[in-house]
């Protein structure tokens, strides 16, 4: 199938700003699904609220556009009732780790087979540029006009510590890598987290004088490096890209099936 067969063309052009990284995530995600040969009926996309979460309206899969921060809770319900479906949960950084932080760590702890995609633009885009738990110190935001004093979470460290069994990171510069990581994440049986560093030229870029969307995408090339690279040893401030965790442990739905079986046997 062609990539366009997976979208709801009637909603295009989409609502994202010119150069918004969320569109690159959509583009690369469609290619992952196409490459895996999945049919639309096998996929459920569950999202919360935010610019990023609007992605579920553009894809021609089963889709649920739910509440800010709660996408993983809804997705858990979908997956437990229909474990044969592939459930993909794209989230903004605020959605995933501010209001939704609790759902995030517990979904990871349970190792439920969902694909969580954190579209990390380090700001609340939809509501006008407030800082998020991923903004980090020194960042300017509408709610931090003199610069943010809060430390940021490292999504990879947080997800790994919470028990996610597949954890990866890349950026919108690395579009092919987004596709490769999403393919692996969707195939993985367990809770997968893929962080995609994404640009919000309208708020994050403008506030922090990072230039155009093009400049912001170029920057992702400069500030990241493959895991364990020589460059990382020489420049420890570089952010690593690639797969950090990939392991098999009991998946939540199958553990639940075991409980049902036990209960049915009456012991």
């Amino acid at each position: 199938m062609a990539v366009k067969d997976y979208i709801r063309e009637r909603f295009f052009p989409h609502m994202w700003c010119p150069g918004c990284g969320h569109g690159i995530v959509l583009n690369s995600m469609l290619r992952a699904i196409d490459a895996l040969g999945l049919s639309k009926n096998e996929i459920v996309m569950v999202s919360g609220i935010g610019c990023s979460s609007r992605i579920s309206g553009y894809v021609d899969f089963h889709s649920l556009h739910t509440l800010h921060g709660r996408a993983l809770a809804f997705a858990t319900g979908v997956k437990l009732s229909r474990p044969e479906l592939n459930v993909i949960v794209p989230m903004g950084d605020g959605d995933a780790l501010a209001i939704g932080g609790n759902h995030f760590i517990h979904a990871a702890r349970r190792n439920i087979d969902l694909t969580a995609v954190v579209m990390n633009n380090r700001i609340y885009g939809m509501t006008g540029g407030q800082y998020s738990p991923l903004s980090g110190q020194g960042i300017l935001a509408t709610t931090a006009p003199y610069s943010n004093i809060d430390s940021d979470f490292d999504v990879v460290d947080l997800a790994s510590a919470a028990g996610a069994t597949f954890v990866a990171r890349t950026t919108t510069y690395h579009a092919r890598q987004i596709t490769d990581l999403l393919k692996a994440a969707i195939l993985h049986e367990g809770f997968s987290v893929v962080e995609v560093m994404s640009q919000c030229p309208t708020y994050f870029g403008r506030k922090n004088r990072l230039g155009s969307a093009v400049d912001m995408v170029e920057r992702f090339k400069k500030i990241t490096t493959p895991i364990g690279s020589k460059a990382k040893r020489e420049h420890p401030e570089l952010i690593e890209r690639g797969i950090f965790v990939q392991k098999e442990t009991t998946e939540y739905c199958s553990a639940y099936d075991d409980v049902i079986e036990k209960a049915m046997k009456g012991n």
Partner: protein
Amino acid sequence: MAKPKLKAHHIIREWCKGCGICVHFCPTNVLELDSEDKVTVARAQDCICCLQCELRCPDLAIEVETQTE
């Protein structure tokens, strides 16, 4: 492996928002933005069919059709 050869760039003008990402990352400077800030193919003969433009377009507005010789 045979090299892919360009058949055509397919551009959906109404979807293009003129962000310039495809123009900037094209390794052989094939693309330009026109006076209305829409992408246009200025030097098709230089295209090496790398798909960098298509893969990074946030608006799914450009597609590169190729054929293998």
